[in-house]
């Protein structure tokens, strides 16, 4: 059963072939067994999950179950969950128990899903390897010497090792797509504003977007339909109907105009990855899609632009962690300044501090125009590049990452090398576009992801393309030997 998709499990539950309690027990066992090897979870909520499963079973028996009733999932530990610990991968919140549910959590709960636990992540979602977590790195199920990617590394590793059928995740600069690619699973970052950010601990508010890591595009369609939509508690969420994503999955690809992103095929791209992407595109062409090359001349500026905008926002967003009302507080502060300095000094890790300092610098008097304002202008140009491209093609495609998963510690000494791992994913965040990554093959035994980016609110189309791709391929069904 653990290899089943969300769609498959939902059908089995409906058909009473399995109970939610049985499923939850089985997955909890897998999670426990894997914890020492993968470290994919920060918290496991066994008792609460079993109670929720029992309730789901009662509903299933009574015949008043929803489409996802009883399906186990996990939440990235960036989403606040009432009554349980929400750490954001940080010592700062190591003992923080949220008094409320994030909208995403609330909606998926209302749809009937059962939360098994909270997945590991880079501290405050800042990282591309899951090595910045206060709770230790997550390991890639395909090769435990390697990173799962980040920041949603726990969610990606958990789904890849089939510890849960699906997990929520968030993406600020690639944090869903990059780990999905590196772990051989499907990851979707919706349009900015499609999913409420209420209760999702903020890293960079104008870039953060909640999404999913699943085995298949079909599962992503089912879950996204339940969690997307306007939320009056998030002013940046968009009041626009949520389509039935599952209904559009089978649409034929004939006539689909696919733009191959020229800038993504740069010197940094591993030739083995490039070859897999080209092969993947042939799968789409065979189904009637037409391929053209598109150029986004400002896209190579994504990384420097992002590393001004995101730290600027994070430096302000993380100011609330001051040791006064919640979170880590240092022992015996001498005075207010000491309370601030030591609480924050002890509570935050090196990467978070680096970004807070960068962000504080770029917003400072005398530097604001040269950095923050300029970055916002470049961001506009990148958005315009995409808008132009979408005048000629329906989706743009390219690799999700320049290489397959790298080894733990390989990029920790030089932050810029680490940042460059997000070079292909950041553009969609800067422009607020929906994007997903689907498994498209293996390079030296490690999974590689194909990235598909669409125009605003084109999730339906992206999921359709991904689903048609997955009908013709089985990369997404591959499971590491140890976790089958």
């Amino acid at each position: 059963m653990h290899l089943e998709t969300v769609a498959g499990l939902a059908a089995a539950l409906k058909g009473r072939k399995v109970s939610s309690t049985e499923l939850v027990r089985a997955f909890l066992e897998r999670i426990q067994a894997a914890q020492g090897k993968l470290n994919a979870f920060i918290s496991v909520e066994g008792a609460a999950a079993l109670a929720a499963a029992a309730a789901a079973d009662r509903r299933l028996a009574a015949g008043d179950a929803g489409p996802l009733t009883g399906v186990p999932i996990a939440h990235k530990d960036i989403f606040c969950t009432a009554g349980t610990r929400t750490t954001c991968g940080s010592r700062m919140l190591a003992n923080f128990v949220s008094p409320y549910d994030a909208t995403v959590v609330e909606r998926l709960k209302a749809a009937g899903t059962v939360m098994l636990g909270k997945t590991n992540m880079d501290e405050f979602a800042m990282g591309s390897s899951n090595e910045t977590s206060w709770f230790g790195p997550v390991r890639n199920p395909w090769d435990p010497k390697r990173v799962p990617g980040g920041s949603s590394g726990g969610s990606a590793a958990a789904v890849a090792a089939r510890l849960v059928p699906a997990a929520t995740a968030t993406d600020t600069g690639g944090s869903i797509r990059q780990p999905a690619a590196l772990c051989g699973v499907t990851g979707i970052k919706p349009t900015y504003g499609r999913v409420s950010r209420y209760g999702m601990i903020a890293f960079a508010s104008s870039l953060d977007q909640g999404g999913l890591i699943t085995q298949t595009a079909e599962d992503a369609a089912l879950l996204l339909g339940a969690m997307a939509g306007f939320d009056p508690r998030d002013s940046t969420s968009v009041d626009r109907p949520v389509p039935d994503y599952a209904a559009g999955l089978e649409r034929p690809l004939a006539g689909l105009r696919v733009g191959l992103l020229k800038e993504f095929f740069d010197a940094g791209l591993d030739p083995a990855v490039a070859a897999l992407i080209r092969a993947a595109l042939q799968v789409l062409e065979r189904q009637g899609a037409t391929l053209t090359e598109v150029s986004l001349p400002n896209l190579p500026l994504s990384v420097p632009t992002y590393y001004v905008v995101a730290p600027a926002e994070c430096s302000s967003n993380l100011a609330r962690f001051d040791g006064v009302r919640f979170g880590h507080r240092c022992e015996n502060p001498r005075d207010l300044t000491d309370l601030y300095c030591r609480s924050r000094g002890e509570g935050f890790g090196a990467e978070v501090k680096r970004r807070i300092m960068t962000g504080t610098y770029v917003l400072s008097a005398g530097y604001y125009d040269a950095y923050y304002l300029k970055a916002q202008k470049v961001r506009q140009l990148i958005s315009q590049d995409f808008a132009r491209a979408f005048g000629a093609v329906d989706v743009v495609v390219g690799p999700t990452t320049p290489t397959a998963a790298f080894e733990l510690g390989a990029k920790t000494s030089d932050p810029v090398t680490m940042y460059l791992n997000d070079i292909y994913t950041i553009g969609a965040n800067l422009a607020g576009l929906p994007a997903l990554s689907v498994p498209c093959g293996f390079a030296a035994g490690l999974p590689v992801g194909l990235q598909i980016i669409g125009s605003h609110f084109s999730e339906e189309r992206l999921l359709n393309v991904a689903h048609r791709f997955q009908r013709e391929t089985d990369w997404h069904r591959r499971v590491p030997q140890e976790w089958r």
Partner: protein
Amino acid sequence: MAWETVIGLEIHAQLATRSKIFSGSATAYGALPNTQANLVDLGYPGVLPVLNVEAVRMAVMFGLAIGAEVAPRSVFARKNYFYPDLPKGYQISQYELPIVARGHLDVVLEDGATKRIGITRAHLEEDAGKSLHENMGGNTGVDLNRAGTPLIEIVSEPDMRSAKEAVAYMKKVHTLVRYLGICDGNMQEGSFRCDANVSVRPQGEAKFGTRAEIKNINSFRFVEKAINYEIARQIDVIEGGGKVVQETRLYDPDRGETRSMRSKEEANDYRYFPDPDLLPVEISPATLAAVRAALPELPDAKAQRFQTQYGLSPYDAGVLTASIELADYYETVVRELKGEPKLVANMVMGDLAGLLNRDGLDIGASRVSARSLAALLARIVDNTISGKIAKDVFLAMWEQGSEADAIIQAQGLTQITDESAIERAIDAVMAANPGQLADYRAGKDKLFGFFVGQVMKATQGKANPARLNELLKKKLSG
């Protein structure tokens, strides 16, 4: 050397919304600490602000009332600094694109001249909480009930040249926000407070001197005192060969002085940037028109109308329209009395204002209602009592809380208009004072007043003065 003072004010007016500017918490004053602070006010991880549209409407009202430009698009920005009563580590305010820009107010100065004070901008922002240092056992407590309360910060041009002008302007703003119903104006509770930027320069100099900013002054009297102290201090510094430094100062009302809080060097770099959690505020022409149509009569227009409709002097009209409650009280009395606007004005500005002032009450708490006052004045108009007796009756009404007619009747104060009764009293006085009578008849006209007094005394002041004058003149001349 002659010095000229330059003053600009930043007024913070708390908007009278029921809930906070970015959360659903109540804004009521005086609740137990932290009982009106929800997760948004506490800056909990993951929470987001949602703008209260009522606060926006109130800011638009203010903009229209000062003849300003209301921005079709304004932007909230974060002002970043650390303080325990600032839960998020930043205050949501407006910076580059405020909702209101370039307005003005006309104030009447002591010499009767009118001066126009420019208003650079007015922007929406959230208030911070309060740090409590007393009765905390050496610790500092934080009360976040006030955190997130909507404020409008009204920034004037450096157009004022004396403390008195500054107070006149501040009073004008105070009157206006209360007319608009967008602020309760309660200065003790901090609903209306100001920072004063003060500098001095040699008379005739075009360049501004270095300014000091005096923070958080919460009464008109303190504004005047603080500014005057600061002017004297700055002149002393310069005349003593020193230089005024740009700094933030605090006014200590107990010592009547300002003292340095922090210098420019210690000032925060607030790192303002647009708040990515909030969309720009957009005001459509239709919204603007709707708010304009719903504006109440404004103070200047009301004062003008009082002059034309009631024949009042500009001064009286100004006094009576200084607060909307006073103006309403006045108009109610006139309406009840069906006229006599000057008689009403004199009573309201004289006896009523005096007793309100004596007892430290606002017009809203007057012990004599407008209707009761009208009933009293009606007795002057119909000659039941004299204006002089009316003053006593009014005092009795105030003290006892009873109605005019009851007091007049109980104390037998009804004016004597019956000629024979007055004549009898005159005859008795003349008979009792033959010497004075002889002197008067011999040409000592001044003694007329003596006889008036004697008759009034004999009638306990109830003789109708006009009738008495008339009859007395006739009788005395024989």
